[in-house]
């Protein structure tokens, strides 16, 4: 089976003021469908940049990037946006829920943007799996960190993405909620063969993944 993610000598350079920063200096990575991969490394090693490239939020400076057989490097912003809408889900450290909407509306927003209409069965299945029944009408400010992250997960998976990209999903949670989120991710991966890439500083979080990729200074140093 063809890998779902392939990068070849992937590089990304940012301009910050007058300074050019090489965030990625040639990353070669292959991820198979259904894999749960943890990406670990010190701050500034390029983990988030790699995630942003894989999610199509930004473009590589050079190198190749194939997601589900699509050459991201040659796609326009509009094409990547369309691809992301249907095939990629994001979970962030800061949850990033829309503050003026309820949990239900936050989850449904993903379906609305995707444009395939509201799927009530999928919605209910996700809500059941994540235990969000009595939280759906609450706004984010009324939810705990763990609850917000569960809503964020629901939003990320409601549209059945090919890849789930999680940027430090337990970074803002206590250990108890962190465990809940990690268990949830493992369940999603095992039950639905969801491909997951997770950035983390937490060795315990990394331990639940099938595979750990270590990065330093914009390179993968071990896989």
């Amino acid at each position: 089976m063809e890998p779902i993610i392939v990068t070849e000598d992937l590089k990304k350079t940012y301009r910050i003021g007058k300074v050019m920063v090489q965030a990625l200096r040639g990353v070669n990575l292959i991820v198979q469908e259904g894999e749960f991969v943890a990406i670990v490394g010190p701050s500034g090693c390029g983990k988030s940049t790699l995630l942003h490239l894989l999610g199509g939020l930004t473009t590589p400076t050079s190198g190749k990037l194939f997601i589900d057989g699509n050459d991201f490097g040659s796609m326009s912003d509009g094409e990547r946006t369309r691809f992301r809408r249907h095939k990629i889900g994001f979970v962030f450290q800061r949850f990033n829920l829309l503050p003026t909407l309820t949990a239900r509306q936050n989850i449904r927003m993903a379906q609305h943007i995707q444009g395939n209409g509201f799927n009530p069965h999928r919605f209910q299945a996700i809500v059941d799996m994540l235990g969000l029944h009595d939280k759906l009408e609450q706004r984010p400010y009324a939810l705990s960190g763990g609850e917000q992250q569960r809503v964020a997960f629901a939003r990320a998976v409601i549209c059945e993405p090919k890849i789930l990209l999680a940027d430090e999903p337990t970074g803002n949670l206590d250990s108890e909620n962190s465990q809940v989120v990690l268990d949830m991710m493992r369940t999603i991966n095992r039950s639905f063969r969801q491909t997951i890439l997770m950035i983390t500083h937490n060795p315990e979080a990394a331990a639940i993944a099938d595979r750990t990729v270590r990065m330093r200074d914009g390179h993968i140093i071990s896989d």
Partner: protein
Amino acid sequence: MVSKMIVANVLHRPIRTIVSILAVAIEVGMVLLVVGMTNGMLHEGAKRVEGVGADVMVQPPGASFFLGLTVAPMPIKLADRLQEVPHVQAVAPVLLHFNTTNGLNLMYGIDMASFDSVSGGFVYYEGGPLQHPDDILVDDWYAKANKNKLGQTLNLINHDFHVAGIVEHGKGARIFIPIQTMQTLMGAHDKASIFFVKCTDPGYTDDVVDSFESLLPKYQIMPVRQYMSMMTSNSLPALTDFVRAMICVAVGIGFLVIFLGMYTTITERTREIGILKSLGASKTYIVQAILEEAALLGGVGIVAGCIGTILARRLVMIYFPTISVDPLDGAWVLRATLLAIGGTLVGAFYPALRAAQLDPVDALAYE
């Protein structure tokens, strides 16, 4: 779903929402009130001239279209010559003066008998006709605005007058004094500014006008109906320019406030825009969402502006009874609506475009 997000965003920032709605409401209100007041005062002034009951107006050569802005070079004895013209029933000489005490009001110096012959007589709410040189008649709107009572002393043109009567509005001016008194005060002995002429039958108006033009070739002789047709803003280019200038100011205010409001909103919601982009929202989606939000604010502002205009009109009529404001005109409500919506969308367009072009990575990292 987008409408829920838009409504939630609008309610989440109540001060910004209220200010934006107010700006659009003021924009709409300014347009409608300026048009209503200019047309209202024009129409009301014209109706009062019509209310004199004359069929023809005779003014000296070079007289202003605006009654009261003309000096009084016509000898009052001209009335006798005009009276002799066939089909003339009555001629009323009037000396005009613009009074600037307690606002701007046109005063008529009249000969009671001839004015009654042309107008059919005043309707007296209180008191009676002018009988003494210092008598004054005021109409009911003027009396209400200035809290005048029967018997009260009024000082106008540096002269004390005695309120002899309060009459129904609608007969030319709001203030009437004896023509001889006006002549003395203005130093215009035996002079008149205008002759109001009533025909034996309105059907003879054109004949009478022709006769007058033969008799007084250089004088301004006009049927009252022609005067009435000229008293529209379209016939007064300067007034049209004034209205247009006020509309531009109003639209400019609305545009600037919406622009600033939406620009601030976009800055505050940078991260939210990043979230939407991470979910796969296209640039078009984001532009559309922001324009819809602006349109919602504009729509509510338009309704508030129309309601505000109706209320403002009522207040003006209560507290400034001599100022006329025409009621809301459907065509102008539509114009004001289109201007407001257009200004709102144009004002929101640049912020919307900016939002759509935000880098999602930067937006997500925004604090």
